[in-house]
């Protein structure tokens, strides 16, 4: 008899603890959700949502954009450091794809394949895709890179520890370590310019208007018009990065 009573008491105690624990957890759950929310991207619907359109059908591979970017943002002149660059894709008649970007296209791209061997050739400007769900932001261990309220992926130079995790995380290869500052550096959509009402330097100098910059929330902006007129795609959509650089005329060969 004695033993049964003890077991019963234990059973009730365990049950009460379980029920109590569940109730307590459901009470703190809303706070937990808030704590997680604080670590996620917060876009301000009152502010613009910046994006860029790239028209591959217009790009001539002159490299003026890459050149201007280096001047504007004081990117080191060596050919390993780029915030933006242009890749030349040449598909030969035998199906081979040749991708080149000597010095990021600065000084103009030249064709290295004989004319009669070319099936088609086109130039693809590349830059940070300013993902809404940016893998680099998730990888940063100190909160030195983030998506700004107006949707630009920025770096906090004074806070970056130069660990290079974000460089590994970026699927677009858009980041590099600045050799003098020893912190990560990347395209900012020329954040200092767009906040003054100017265009990013690459967009400003593009001679064929192959780059279109604008506010995705403003339905009359140049960028939105470009996206209405052309079927646009983002790079590597399967990665679910929700990037905001939209390409027109993107071939499946482009990586």
């Amino acid at each position: 008899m004695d033993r049964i009573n003890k077991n019963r008491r234990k059973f009730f105690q365990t049950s009460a603890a379980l029920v109590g624990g569940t109730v307590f957890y459901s009470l703190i759950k809303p706070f937990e959700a808030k704590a997680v929310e604080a670590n996620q991207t917060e876009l301000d619907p009152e502010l613009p949502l910046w994006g860029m359109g790239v028209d591959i059908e217009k790009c001539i591979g002159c490299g003026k954009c890459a050149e201007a970017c280096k001047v504007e943002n004081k990117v080191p002149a060596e050919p390993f450091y780029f915030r933006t660059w242009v890749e030349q894709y040449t598909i030969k008649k035998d199906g081979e794809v040749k991708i080149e970007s000597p010095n990021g296209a600065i000084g103009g791209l030249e064709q290295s394949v004989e004319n009669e061997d070319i099936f088609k050739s086109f130039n693809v400007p590349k830059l940070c895709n300013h993902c809404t769900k940016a893998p680099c932001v998730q990888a940063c261990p100190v909160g030195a890179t983030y998506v700004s309220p107006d949707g630009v992926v920025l770096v906090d130079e004074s806070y970056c520890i130069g660990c290079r995790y974000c460089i590994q995380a970026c699927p677009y290869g858009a980041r590099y370590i600045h050799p003098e500052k020893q912190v990560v550096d990347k395209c900012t959509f020329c954040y200092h310019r767009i906040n003054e009402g100017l265009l990013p330097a690459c967009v400003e100098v593009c001679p064929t208007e192959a780059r279109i910059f604008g506010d995705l929330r403003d339905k009359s902006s140049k960028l939105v018009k470009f996206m209405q007129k052309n079927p646009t795609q983002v790079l590597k959509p399967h990665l679910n990065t929700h990037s905001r650089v939209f390409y027109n005329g993107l071939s499946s060969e482009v990586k």
Partner: protein
Amino acid sequence: MGKLIFRLVLSFLVFVGVFMLIQDYLTPESFGKYGHYRANSLDDNKKIIPQFKGEDACASCHEDIYEKKSETVSFDDDEYILHSNLKCETCHSPKIDARTECKIKPPKLESTRKMCGQCHSINASRKNKIKMIDMSDHNTEKNCVECHNPHNPWIE
């Protein structure tokens, strides 16, 4: 027993207190205002002074050149825009601070054959997008600007 628990709770509280003090000391100002980052960093990123001033800034002094550039050319009943949709700074990259130094040391364009070839040399990737010139054949001994005014290049 009660004393032991009291000590335990007290040391726990002290630990939490010290942790919060250190955290408060180490967390920079404005961290977490908009998200998991330093909100003041937005201003740091805005602070940089633009190098490229935009076409309006150029036109405010060089109106004559700007107008010449904006003219269209009629040829074969078609209107050609030629260089009119090029921005000034596409070719005149700001190597100087134009606001103060423009008159003291005007920027020079060098080697225009190479410069024009950057856009106009033959390349299969430029097909149907731009007028292409065979640079190894087209008046090789001359500089482009001797015949073409880059602010309004004629066509023939």
